[in-house]
């Protein structure tokens, strides 16, 4: 089942989505165009993986062989829902999207073994983990100015129950800018699989329901400019739409 959080008629609603129908929990049936999409999960801790696809690591000229996985954390300020707008600062030259499978946890655990890792997963959604490369610095890289900006992590449109995804390690990821395909990969190419990531993170900290793991992106991250419609899509999970806007969108008109 596809679970969404939406705003409709002045209140925040939980909903399930079947085709074009959005079934609100209070019984009302509305269409996808009638709702405002919110991030489908109210996050606890948000983890993100850097360089978790060999081809993307190569694209960024990093060696794929690392001692420890490159993990960073994100704050709740970064998340925005489907059909949201993400600001590109006027002074930047390179802002790229990253289409990522987001794993949402449903159960608390520590020292979780790979073999039982999926027991801790509630479901999956799509994330677009934008990065502004102009702001990269070599301290706790990728630094928060690159990766923790307001609204720079579109997520959604909905959460898909894990039971509905046959093999999360074999899903096609694609990104389209203004309808043109610019990224095409598969979760099969992750360096560390979902079970390995859960085992690694839980080896040193407790994971909780509502934790979200953004599992990294394959190659094909290109620059986006103001006005671009960026669609990140994962087979069987969803199609997440975002529009890049300029800073003037935040000014008083």
């Amino acid at each position, binding site marked *: 089942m596809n679970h969404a959080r939406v705003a409709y008629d002045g209140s925040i609603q939980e909903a399930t989505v079947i085709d074009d129908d959005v079934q609100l929990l209070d019984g009302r049936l509305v269409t996808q165009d009638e709702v405002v999409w919110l991030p489908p999960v109210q996050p*606890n*801790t948000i*983890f993100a993986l850097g360089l978790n696809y060999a081809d993307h690591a190569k694209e960024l000229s990093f060696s794929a062989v690392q001692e*420890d996985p*490159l*993990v*960073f*954390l*994100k*704050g*709740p*300020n*970064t998340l925005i829902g489907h059909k949201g707008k993400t600001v590109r600062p006027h002074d930047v030259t390179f802002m790229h999207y990253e289409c990522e499978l987001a794993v949402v946890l449903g159960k608390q655990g*520590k020292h979780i073994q790979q073999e039982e890792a999926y027991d801790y997963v509630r479901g999956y959604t799509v994330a677009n983990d934008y990065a502004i490369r102009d*702001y990269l*610095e*070599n*301290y*706790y*890289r*990728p*630094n*928060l*100015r690159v990766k*923790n*900006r*307001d609204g720079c992590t579109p997520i959604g449109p909905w959460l898909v129950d894990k039971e509905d995804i046959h093999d999360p390690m074999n899903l096609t990821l694609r990104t389209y800018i203004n309808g043109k395909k610019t990224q095409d990969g598969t979760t099969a190419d992750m360096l560390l699989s979902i079970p390995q990531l859960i085992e690694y993170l839980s080896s*040193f*900290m*407790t994971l*909780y329901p509502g934790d979200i793991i953004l599992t990294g992106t394959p190659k094909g991250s290109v620059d986006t400019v103001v006005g671009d419609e960026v669609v990140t899509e994962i087979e069987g999970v969803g199609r997440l739409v975002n529009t890049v806007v300029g800073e003037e969108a935040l000014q008083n008109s």
Partner: protein
Amino acid sequence: MQTVYMKLSGIQPLQEGKVNLNKQEVWINGSSYKNKDLAFDIPITGTVYGTLLNYRNAYIQSKETMHQAPYQAPPKAPVLYIKPKNTLIAPESIIPIPEEEQELEIGAALGVVIGKTASKIDEFHALDVVEGYTIVNDVSIPHDSVYRPAVKEKARDGFCPVGPWIMSKTAVHNPNALEIRVLVNGELKQKSNTNQLVRTVEKLLADVTEFMTLTKGDVLLVGVPENPPRVKAKDHIHIEIDQIGVLENTIDIEKASVGGRL
């Protein structure tokens, strides 16, 4: 007497009280209590953001390597990190030391507690968004490299004691002139002062909210002074910040510590 906001164990709403720091007593709804008789819980609710290299001497110590690989250049923006929810623990709780580690680093930090939504604020109005101040122990597994985010070193369960309360902002004359003392087993191990900050509280708030919104309940740590004390299992840690209070915890092995108190 100064106004504080406390989370007491067993009571859901945050409690407003008056505190006398010298007498170590708190007044709540007209009755007085000794600090030691109250069970203080974690007083904050939002995201905790830490700041690296924001004390002059800590910055100077790293300066030599800043032009070398992998850093190449000194940092321009504040270097930030997140202490996630699993790290937060109350005053008097046990800080768990992982089995494979011998020592932990104590990061005595002034925590600026946000009182209202703060986006792109300027330095001169920065304190308008502050609710008050608290004491945070930003515990780490010692690590030399700061090239990659230190999640494994800083985000362990129980690595962020906070408290004992939020001291209201009006009680603190100048957040950029507060002495900080760390005592381990009663012995003074570190003395510093927020007058040594590279970015003042106001400047840090301005630079951080330029790109990310802080919301009510979030906490921004102004940094950790140079030469953080190293501690081991069974050590008692006392962090004192002038005009704010004392945060005390004890280190113990991880297995003994889940939700535990001594």
